[in-house]
C-alpha cells in the first residue's frame, strides 16, 4: 500500500495535481484540501476514501500521468494497518471505466460535437466538481483552472480589439456578461447538462456532480488576494479602477482572501454573517466550472485552435447589447471633457425640433454639435432631459466605436499567420 505525496510530484505532473500558482488563494485551498491534518472531521472521512482510491491501481483514470515506477519510490506516510476496510467504501465519484457505458455522456459528447481526441472519460471528469470529489486527479479543478485562463484570455482580447474605447468598468461588466458565472451557467444549461441529486459512485457519469452542502473551490479566479480584503468586505471600502485592474480578477471582483474565510468561520454568530461566508451560489459555480473545465479539456486534448474555436462558437457568439451596460452620472460634463481632450470644439446643444411645448406631453429633439459636426442627438420631454440623452448618445457613440473585424493577438500564434498589423486601443476613459 502506498500513497502519493502531492508535494513531491514533478513539475510535469502539476496539471494532474494542482495549478502552479502560489500567490492566490485557490491553489492554497486545493493543496490544503488534499492534506488531511488541516481539515474538519466530516471532510476527513471523505478524504480518506479518496486517498484509498488513489492506492488502488484499478481506479486510475486513463489520463493520469504518473507512472507506477515513480510512485513506488515515494515512501509511505501512514501505515494502513488499522482503520476501516476501505476497499468496501464507496468512491466519492463514479469510476472512470463506467464513462464508456453512459448513454448520457456520449450523447453530450455528440451534442457538443467534441473532437474524438477528447475521450468520454475526460468528459466524465469535467463533470465532477471539486466539492463532490476532493481528489485533484478525479475532479475538474485543474481543467477548470486552465479553461478559465483560456476563456478569459479569448474573451478579453476579443472585446478589447473589437471595442477599443470601452471604459474599464464597462469592460469588466462585459467580461462578466460573456465569461462570468451567470453566463457560463446558462451555457451549461443550454447544453442540456443535468445535475445529480447527490454525488456518489453509483451516479450516472453523464450527470454533473457537486455537493450542495460543501463549498466548491473557487476555481478560475485569477488575481491577487489583497492584504486589506477583510476591511474591504466588512467596511465596504472603495476600490479604485486602477487597483481593480491590478489586483482583482478578470471581472474586477475582489478575490476573497483565504484568511478572511477562516477568520469569519470562527466568529460567525448571526444569520447575517453566514450569508457572506457561503459560496455565492454553489450550483451556479459548479455549472460554470464544468464549462471552464470542458474548455480546458478541449485545449489539452485537441490543441489551441480547437479551444479557440470552441470558445468562439459557444461563448463569444452569444448576444450582448453593450450600449445597455452604460450608466452615466454627469454625461454633459464628461462630453465636454472628452471634446477638450480630443481637441474638438466645445460641445453645444441645439434644439432641432419640438412639439407641444405648452402641452402635457411635449417632445424636444436636441442635437449636440461640436463646431459643424453633430456628435449626438436625443429626445426627451424637457429641454434638459433631451440634452442629457443627446450627450449620452454622443458618449456612447464614442465609447462603442468598433473598427470591425480585426486581427486578434491569438491569431498570430498559428504558423501561417499574416504579419501583425497593430490594432488601435484607446488611451482610456475620459474621467476616471
Amino acid at each position, binding site marked *: 500500500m502506498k500513497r502519493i505525496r502531492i508535494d513531491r510530484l514533478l513539475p510535469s505532473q502539476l496539471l494532474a495535481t494542482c495549478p502552479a500558482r502560489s500567490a492566490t488563494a485557490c491553489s492554497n485551498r486545493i493543496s490544503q484540501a488534499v492534506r488531511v491534518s488541516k481539515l474538519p472531521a466530516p471532510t476527513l472521512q471523505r478524504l480518506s476514501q479518496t486517498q484509498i482510491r488513489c492506492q488502488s491501481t484499478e481506479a486510475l483514470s486513463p489520463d493520469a500521468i504518473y507512472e507506477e515506477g515513480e510512485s513506488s519510490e515515494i515512501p509511505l506516510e501512514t501505515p494502513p494497518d488499522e482503520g476501516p476496510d476501505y476497499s468496501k467504501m464507496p468512491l466519492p465519484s463514479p469510476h472512470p471505466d463506467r464513462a464508456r457505458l453512459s*448513454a448520457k455522456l456520449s450523447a453530450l459528447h455528440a451534442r457538443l460535437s467534441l473532437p474524438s481526441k477528447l475521450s468520454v472519460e475526460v468528459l466524465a471528469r469535467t463533470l465532477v466538481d471539486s466539492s463532490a470529489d476532493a481528489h485533484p486527479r478525479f475532479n475538474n479543478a485543474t481543467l477548470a483552472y486552465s479553461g478559465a485562463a483560456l476563456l478569459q484570455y479569448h474573451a478579453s482580447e476579443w472585446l478589447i480589439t473589437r471595442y477599443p474605447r470601452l471604459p474599464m468598468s464597462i469592460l469588466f*461588466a462585459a467580461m462578466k*456578461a460573456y465569461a462570468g458565472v451567470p453566463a457560463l451557467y446558462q451555457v451549461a444549461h443550454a447544453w442540456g447538462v443535468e445535475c445529480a441529486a447527490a454525488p456518489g459512485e453509483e451516479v450516472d457519469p453523464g450527470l454533473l456532480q457537486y455537493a450542495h452542502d460543501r463549498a466548491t473551490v473557487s476555481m478560475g479566479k485569477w488575481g491577487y488576494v489583497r492584504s486589506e480584503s477583510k476591511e474591504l468586505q466588512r467596511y465596504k471600502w472603495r476600490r479604485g479602477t486602477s487597483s481593480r485592474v491590478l489586483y482583482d480578477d478578470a471581472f474586477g471582483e475582489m478575490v476573497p482572501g483565504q484568511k478572511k474565510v477562516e477568520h469569519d468561520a470562527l466568529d460567525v454568530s448571526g444569520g447575517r454573517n453566514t450569508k457572506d461566508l457561503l459560496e455565492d451560489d454553489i450550483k451556479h459555480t459548479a455549472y460554470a466550472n464544468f464549462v471552464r473545465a470542458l474548455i480546458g479539456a478541449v485545449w489539452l486534448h485537441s490543441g489551441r485552435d480547437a479551444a479557440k474555436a470552441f470558445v468562439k*462558437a459557444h461563448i463569444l457568439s452569444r448576444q450582448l447589447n453593450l450600449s445597455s451596460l452604460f*450608466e452615466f*452620472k454627469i454625461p454633459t460634463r464628461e462630453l465636454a471633457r472628452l471634446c477638450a481632450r480630443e481637441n474638438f470644439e466645445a460641445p453645444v446643444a441645439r434644439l432641432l425640433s419640438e412639439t407641444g411645448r405648452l402641452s402635457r406631453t411635449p417632445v424636444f429633439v436636441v442635437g449636440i454639435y461640436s463646431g459643424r459636426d453633430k456628435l449626438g442627438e436625443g*429626445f426627451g420631454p424637457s429641454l434638459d432631459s433631451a440634452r442629457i440623452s443627446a450627450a449620452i448618445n454622443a458618449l456612447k457613440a464614442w465609447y462603442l466605436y468598433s473598427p470591425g473585424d480585426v486581427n486578434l493577438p491569438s491569431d498570430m500564434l498559428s504558423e501561417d499567420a499574416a504579419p501583425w498589423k497593430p490594432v488601435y486601443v484607446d488611451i482610456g476613459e475620459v474621467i476616471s
Partner: protein
Amino acid sequence: MTIRAIEKVSVGQNGLGAFILQCKKMDIHYCDYSGSSRGMNAFIKSQLSNFAKAHPQIEFAVSPRPRKHPVLIGHYINGRTKSICVKNMDSLQVLKKAQLLRDASGEKNKRVNKPVTSISESVRGVWSPYHGNGMVV
C-alpha cells in the same frame, strides 16, 4: 467615476456559432403482446438502430410497457417533454413521429405571424415625426 456599469448576462442564440439539438432524450415504450404496437415493434427492429446511429446527440431509452399503447416521449433541453401515442401506426409513420420529436424545440406550439423574429433592434429605426422635412398638406 462618472460611468457605472450595469450587470447583464449575454443571451445565447442557438445556431449562431454552435447548434445544439434541443431534443436530448427519447423514450420509446412498446408492448410485446398487443396489436397496437405492431408497427412500433417493427420500427424498433428495423429502423431504430439506424435512426439512433444518425443521431448520437439523442439518448435513446427503449423499455417495454405491457398492456399499454406504444408511446414516443421526447425530453428537451428547456425541461419540457413531448409525448406522442403511436398506437396502430406502421413503422414508417412511427419514424415520422420520431423525426417530428427530434426536430421540435420543446417549446409549446405557438402561432408565428411575423416573418422575422429578432432580439436586435431594427437597422432602419423607428419612424419619427420630428425628423425630416415633413410633407406640406
